[in-house]
């Protein structure tokens, strides 16, 4: 076997390797980012619904106050609360815990029969801005691929009917 045959030199090989990796790295980065897209879409859609629910429950309370002739902000003191679709005052104070999903797919505060813990926490905050205005924020918090995510909506309720 002769040793005067010309193979690749080290420099050539290194250049080729560099070009190859420059081409592959972005493609790989793209592919890994696509891993979570479907979950990301799902979590956002669910969070949007849950956030809206928080606002609507407070609004229902405000309306019911009117119906019985109470002040519009009765039982709606400043603070952070946790609630579910059928909550009525007094709302329980926010305790930084996960929502559960139980019978009929219903999201609930407390675990019940055949319920599963979800990844979501819901914090509904009430802040009285003036004697005729309440600011309600409803924030959904969850963790997605080791990153904290949140979805927050805000609504203002007035003493106006």
């Amino acid at each position: 076997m002769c040793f005067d045959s010309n193979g690749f030199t080290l420099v050539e090989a290194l250049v080729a390797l560099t070009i190859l990796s420059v081409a592959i790295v972005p493609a790989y980065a793209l592919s890994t980012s696509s891993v979570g897209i479907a979950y990301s879409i799902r979590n956002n859609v669910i969070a949007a619904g849950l956030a809206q629910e928080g606002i609507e429950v407070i609004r229902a309370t405000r309306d019911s106050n009117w119906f019985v002739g109470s002040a519009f902000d009765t039982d709606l003191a400043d603070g952070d609360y946790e609630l579910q679709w059928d909550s009525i005052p007094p709302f329980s104070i926010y305790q930084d815990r996960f929502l559960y999903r139980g019978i009929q797919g219903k999201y609930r505060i407390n675990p019940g029969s055949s319920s599963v813990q979800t990844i979501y926490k819901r914090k509904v905050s009430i802040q009285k801005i003036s004697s005729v205005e309440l600011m309600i924020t409803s924030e959904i918090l969850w963790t997605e691929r080791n990153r904290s995510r949140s979805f927050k909506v805000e609504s203002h309720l007035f003493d106006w009917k």
Partner: protein
Amino acid sequence: MRLFNSHKLKNDQHGFSLIEVLISVFVFSMIVIAIGGIFTQILALQRRGAGAQKVQENTLFALELMAREIRVSKIDNQDAPLCDRTTLTIVHPVNGTVIYSTSGGLIQRQAGGTVTTITSADVNFSRLNFCVLGTTVTATVGDQKQARVGIIMQASSRATRPEDTLVFDLETTVISRDNAIEFSN
């Protein structure tokens, strides 16, 4: 052969030896298999992502349509505190009686006797339940509660391979803004 011989093919031009060829083919095929595997995975992810997008579009559309109608409608005697209602009947000031239900995994809206399917055949709604509170009324008296309707959906994309589907468990609540009966007391 004589042609080659006549040019005196020199034996000092070395090609690859058999071992070299075998090794390079082996290495090449390893790389191709690895890349091919990653590629098919990416395709599956892409399919799942596209499916999730379809579910998103359909659920948001259906929820928005229902929410808009529920907000202005009269909802009477539909209470379902256990969320076991699968059909919701509301009276819209313009569209008249509107009924929401599912059939074969599709959401249907019935208004004025006409049934319209409002979601795509690409998405399977395996659950549409309504939780209803505060709609108990008699002819003139309300229950002094604002009508609230919780909408629970379970939706997934219809895919041939089960691993391409992702199940969405949605819930939201909408309250009516129709206060006529309550303030007429």
